């Protein structure tokens, strides 16, 4: 099969895959419909302060697996829903920021800087429309870069990297994630170390399950879903409830302007286009790096937009921070461009770069039949590589999601202002119950619930002491691959203890890992406190 045949097979796998239901002689394929459902849910959770895309992914994954089962045909419908949530949540986050000045995430805070003042001037609908157009533009560019770069990068990796280089690449990724996430490199390293340690419990090659203190309860290790949901979701629930626990529930949001009139004005698109494009390029570049989330993209997008605006602002135009449409465009295009590009490391290298990518890996791991990484992009012929068909199916779903973003996104987004009125102190306990139930139906064991609560406590403590949680999760996911690659590389090199320095490429990768940790730790970053580290970059 050639490249074109694989692309076609991927498209057909989406539209001719398992049917969700049949009626009037027509079958409704599950994958596109699940994408639409996911997109709708994504906008709703994005528009709900306190909720975010990964939380919806976490809750829905066990339900999706229950519906579609653990067979290869389930992959695309499940991925469809998750991709829909991911895309929907990126545009949904702008709704409470613009209408109510409520910023659940730091990047939404940047949107609120100009969106809310514009809404207060009676132009809420225009602000939302600018956010939507910019967000969809960023998403489009990001998807195109993903389609081109992921296969190319994977082929390069597969062709030029051997076992020592692959080991070094994983080490570099972990070093990068530890150094770049949160406010302290030291804390990032501690987070990575603990993630690796948790993954190594009972996972060795010997008969005796290591690091279990001889306890039978630990002999199976920690379930992946319980660890990921515990640290990412339950920890976040604890942290969210705490403030309201001591200070009482937050007052309901008051909308400043609910005008239904207005929208884009003539010349608005031309006005915001350069800002949206520059931010989209910036967001895509940042998104392709593992561990660098939409917060940094939004912040830099806004800052660069501000610089340009100062030079080109016409007299009478509002300042940045005073309701400038360019400010909304610069932020929204940047943070939306991160979502597609974040899938580049996960699809091409098997390295999840953000929380949404973690759930894509989790879904693939739970269902089986698809192992994200460079081996996916093997263009075999005449035998069909089913993983490659799934990969092109994912690209098709991304493109369909983008189409939904441009078309239905605006109408769904506009209707979701109501979600901002949901009380967080009511929502969070419900999310806790849903998460615990979802884990139980998978593991059917109350012990698993205590494991998820235990990791939830760990996630909460991490947030309190300013340790970023995502390096822990990414290290937990990559630990098995790292150990396997190192063991094989050591054996293949004839027990050479310096196998990581056996080729120029692996030396460069290891030196880069050391350089990342060394250079970034020289910055005294602790002073910004733990606010940023405690907020999982969930969009």
């Amino acid at each position, binding site marked *: 099969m050639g490249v074109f045949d694989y692309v076609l097979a991927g498209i057909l796998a989406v539209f001719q895959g398992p049917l969700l239901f049949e009626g009037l002689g027509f079958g409704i394929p599950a994958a596109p419909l699940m994408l639409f459902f996911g997109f709708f849910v994504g906008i709703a959770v994005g528009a709900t302060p306190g909720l975010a895309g990964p939380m919806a992914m976490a809750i829905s994954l066990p339900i999706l697996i*229950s519906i579609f089962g653990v067979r290869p045909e389930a992959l695309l419908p499940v991925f469809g829903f998750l991709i829909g949530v991911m895309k929907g949540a990126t545009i949904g986050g702008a709704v409470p920021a613009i209408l109510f000045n409520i910023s659940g995430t730091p990047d939404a805070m940047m949107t609120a800087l100009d969106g809310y003042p514009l809404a207060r001037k009676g132009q809420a609908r225009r602000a939302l429309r600018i956010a939507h157009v910019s967000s969809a533009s960023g998403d489009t560019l990001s998807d195109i870069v993903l389609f081109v770069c992921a296969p190319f990068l994977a082929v390069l990796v597969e062709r030029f990297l051997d076992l020592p280089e692959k080991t070094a690449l994983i080490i570099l990724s972990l070093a990068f994630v530890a150094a770049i996430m949160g406010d*302290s490199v*030291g*804390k990032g*390293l*501690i*987070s*990575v*170390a*603990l993630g*690796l340690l948790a993954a*190594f419990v009972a996972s*060795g*090659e*010997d*008969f*005796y399950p*290591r*690091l279990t203190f001889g306890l039978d309860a630990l002999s199976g290790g920690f379930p992946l879903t319980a660890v990921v949901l515990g640290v990412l979701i339950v920890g976040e629930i604890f942290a969210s*409830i*705490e403030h*309201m*626990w001591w200070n009482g*529930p937050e007052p309901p949001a008051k909308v400043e302007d609910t005008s239904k009139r207005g929208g884009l004005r003539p010349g608005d698109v031309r006005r915001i286009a350069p800002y949206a494009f520059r931010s989209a390029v910036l967001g895509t570049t940042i998104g392709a790096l593992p561990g660098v989330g939409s917060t940094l993209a939004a912040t830099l997008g806004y*800052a660069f937009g501000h610089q340009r605006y100062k030079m080109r602002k016409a007299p009478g135009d509002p300042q940045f921070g005073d309701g400038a449409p360019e400010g909304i465009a610069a932020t929204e295009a940047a943070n939306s461009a991160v979502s597609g590009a974040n899938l580049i490391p996960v699809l091409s290298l098997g390295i999840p770069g953000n929380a949404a990518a973690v759930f894509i890996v989790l879904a693939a791991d739970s269902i089986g039949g698809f192992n994200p990484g460079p081996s996916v992009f093997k263009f075999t012929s005449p035998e069909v590589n089913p993983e490659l068909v799934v990969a092109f199916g994912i690209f098709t779903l991304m493109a369909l999601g983008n189409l939904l973003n441009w078309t239905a996104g605006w109408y769904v987004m506009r209707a979701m202002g109501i979600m901002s009125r949901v009380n967080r*102190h*009511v929502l*969070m*306990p*419900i999310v*806790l*119950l*849903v998460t615990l*139930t979802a884990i*139980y*139906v998978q*593991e*059917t*064991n*109350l012990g698993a*619930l205590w494991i998820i*609560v235990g990791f939830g406590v760990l996630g909460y403590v991490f947030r309190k*002491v*300013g340790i970023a949680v995502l390096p822990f999760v990414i290290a937990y996911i990559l*630990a098995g691959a*790292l*150990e396997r690659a190192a063991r094989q590389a*050591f*054996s293949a090199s004839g*027990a050479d203890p310096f196998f990581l320095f056996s080729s120029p490429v692996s030396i460069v990768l290891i030196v880069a890992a050391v350089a990342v*940790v060394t250079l970034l*730790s020289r*910055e*005294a*970053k*602790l*002073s*910004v*406190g733990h606010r*940023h580290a405690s907020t999982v970059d969930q969009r």
Partner: protein
Amino acid sequence: MRMIVFARLKSNPPTPSVRIAEPFGQVPEPHPRRLERRGQRMSRRSGARTEKENRDLPRLTPDRVIGLLAIVLGIVAILWWVPADAGSPLIERVRGRLRIGDAMAPTVALAILVLGGVVLLLETRLAKHSIRLSPRSLIFLVHCLIVIAVAFALMRWIGPIAVAGWAAATDSTATYRDLRDTVPWKYLGFLVGGTFLVATPIVLCERRFSLRAVLIGLFSAAAMMAVYDLPFDDLLLPPNGDV
């Protein structure tokens, strides 16, 4: 994020209390404000704390405690825990060939933990502030865990206790295990425990008992039953997989 750091530094510049030495011999005493500005510039460039900041920051900040804990626990685990709790050493010989043993990966992870502690201690030397921990966080966490433990206990025991009571009243020999796939027994524990798990935090946040909170809990638990139990025969709600 680094831009936010710079913004903060600019808005709260450190105030130097030391005299800045002139590099080339004696020069007239500069104006104090000029000295202050120069000190601010140098302090910003080097990232080092001033004496005043050193005085303000206690010696044992939470960040330093975390760094020290990581170093001590990491070394103790490398020396005692891993060798005692792994099936094979760092390197082992199997059929004449050397291979990596089970102790290697945890040892490397713990070495990274120690490295993280060292880097954190070095970072705290340059940091202007440290995180602040409040005992309220611990109190909150204990309360949360008590609520969860009670909810789990209700889920686990309400069904069996109800069946035991019903069996005693009707002279039946049935146990919960016999009835765990029948309505209403299979839902009792989840409904009561789930309602408690949702309603209690709402009540505690609102600081008043309300029927609304109970109804929200009841509805949430019922919705979970509808999602998982009604359409799927093979899925079990808590605690039916354990008893």
